[in-house]
C-alpha cells in the first residue's frame, strides 16, 4: 500500500535522511525504531509532505512525493505528530470535528466510537482542549486523526511521557484500529509495544534503515539492538 524508496531529506544544509526504504502492506502493522535524532520523525513528515521529500513515495502505486499535506491526507493517510499539536482554543469535540474531512461525513469512526475507545474524553468533550493532561491530549490527537477515516495511520511516538497505565491504553487503541482494517506505521521508542503488536519491524541507524524483519528476528539480533537501540 505504502512504498518509500531511496528517500532523502534536508534540514537547511544538514542531510537528515540518507536513502530510506520501507513498505507498509494493507492491514499490516509496521514499527519504525531507532535512537533520538536518527530521522524517524523526519521520515514521517517527509511521507506526509510536511518536509520536502527527495526520492520516491508511492501510495497504492501512485506517487505522492512532495504533494501538499492536505492532498495526501485526502488520499487516505492519517498522521499523529510526536508533539500531539491539539488545538488549545477549541473544545475536545471541536478538535474531533476538525478531524473529519467533510462536515458531518462519518467514515468508520463516529463520535461514539471515539468515546467508547477513550471514556475519559466523553466527560471532557466540552472542555477547551488546552486544559487536558498529557495522556488525554495523546488520546485526543489519535482520535482526531481517526475521525478522518484514514486507511493508513502514521503514529509518531504515542507513548512518550505517558505513565505505564496509559501506555497500556495506547496498546489497546492500536489493537482496536488494526482489527477495524486500518494499517499502522508506528514510530516508537519503547520496544515493548512495538514488538508485541507489529507484523514487521524496521530499525533506523544514521538516516538509513539498518534492519528489517519480524519482531522475533530483532529479539534474536543482539548486534543491531546494541548499536541502534537503547532501552
Amino acid at each position, binding site marked *: 500500500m505504502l512504498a518509500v524508496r531511496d528517500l532523502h531529506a534536508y534540514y537547511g544544509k*544538514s542531510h537528515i535522511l540518507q536513502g530510506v526504504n520501507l513498505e507498509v502492506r494493507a492491514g499490516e502493522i509496521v514499527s519504525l525504531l531507532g*535512537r533520538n535524532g536518527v530521522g524517524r520523525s523526519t521520515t514521517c513528515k517527509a511521507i506526509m509532505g510536511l518536509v520536502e521529500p527527495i526520492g520516491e513515495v508511492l501510495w497504492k502505486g501512485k506517487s505522492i512525493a512532495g504533494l501538499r499535506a492536505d492532498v495526501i491526507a485526502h488520499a487516505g493517510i492519517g498522521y499523529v505528530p510526536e508533539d500531539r499539536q491539539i488545538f488549545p482554543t477549541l473544545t475536545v469535540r471541536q478538535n474531533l470535528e476538525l478531524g473529519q474531512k467533510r462536515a458531518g461525513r462519518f467514515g468508520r469512526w463516529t463520535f461514539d466510537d471515539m468515546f467508547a475507545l477513550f471514556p475519559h474524553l466523553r466527560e471532557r468533550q466540552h472542555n477547551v482542549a488546552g486544559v487536558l*493532561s498529557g495522556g488525554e491530549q495523546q488520546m485526543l490527537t489519535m482520535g482526531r486523526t481517526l475521525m478522518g477515516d484514514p486507511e493508513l495511520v502514521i503514529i509518531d511516538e504515542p*507513548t512518550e511521557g505517558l505513565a505505564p497505565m496509559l501506555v*497500556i491504553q495506547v496498546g489497546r487503541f492500536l489493537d482496536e484500529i488494526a482489527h477495524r482494517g486500518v494499517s499502522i506505521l508506528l514510530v516508537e521508542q519503547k*520496544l515493548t509495544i512495538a514488538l508485541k503488536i507489529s507484523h514487521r519491524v524496521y530499525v533506523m541507524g544514521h538516516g538509513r534503515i539498518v534492519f528489517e524483519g519480524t519482531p522475533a528476528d530483532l529479539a534474536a539480533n543482539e548486534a543491531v539492538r546494541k548499536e541502534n537501540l537503547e532501552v
Partner: protein
Amino acid sequence: MSAPALHLSDVQKNFGPTPVILGVSLDVSAGSRHAIIGPNGAGKTTLFNLISGRFPVTTGRIELHGQRIDGLPPHEINRRGLSRSFQVTSIFPRMTVFENIRCGLLWSRGYRYSFWHLLGGQRALNDAAARLLADVNLEARRDVPAGLLSYAEQRALEIGITIAGGADTVLLDEPTAGMSRSEADHAVALIRRITAGKTLVMVEHDMSVVFDLADVVTVLVYGQVIASGPPAEIRANRAVQDAYLGVPAAGSGVGIA
C-alpha cells in the same frame, strides 16, 4: 565535607495543569560523574532547564556549592561556574565553527562587553580556541558556518561550546544522541578527559555510555526519582527495570543491556 556541587531539595515544576517534576531531591557531590537516566518524557530535560535557570522552579530550592541559584537568570548561573549543553543542538548557525567556540570562551577570559579589543589580535584567546577545536576534532571544519555541519559534528561542537567557559559543573543533555558507535566512543573519551576534576551531570540513553562513565546513576521516571546509587546497584534494581520498560514485557526477553 564541602557543600555538594549541586543540591536540589523538593524541586517541583508544573506546566499549566500538568505536573512534570513531582518533588525531586538530589545531591551531586563535587568532582563526581552523575548520570540521570529514565524513559522518554520522564522530565530529565526539564530538570536540566530548572537547574540551569531556563525555566523558573514552581517550588523547591536549588543550590550550587551552597549558594542558592534557583530564580537567577541563566547567564548569572553560568558565570558562577555551571555550564550546560542542549538535547536539541543549540549553536550559532551563521557563525563559523571557530567563532562558536570562541564565543564560549569570551566571558570566562574577562572580555565581557568590550568593544575595544580586536579579537584578531588576542593571541592567548585564539590559541585556547584552537586547542579546544582540536579537542573536539573539528579543526578541519574551522571556517565552515556551523549550520553546515553534519548532525554528529554539531553535537561535538555543542560539547565544545559547553566546556569552553571552563565551568567546574558541566551539565550534558544526551551528548551522544544520534552519533554512531565510533563517534560516541570518541565523545565519551573527550568527555572523560575534559571533565577530569570537574563535576559532571549527564542525561544519557545509551546504557554502555552511562555505565562506562558514571560513578552515580539516578533514575527519573514520570517526574520522580525512583532510585539513585552506584551503577551496579541500579542495574540490579527490579523497580528500575519495571519502570523503565513500562509494562514488564511478556516473553520478549529484552532487558537492560
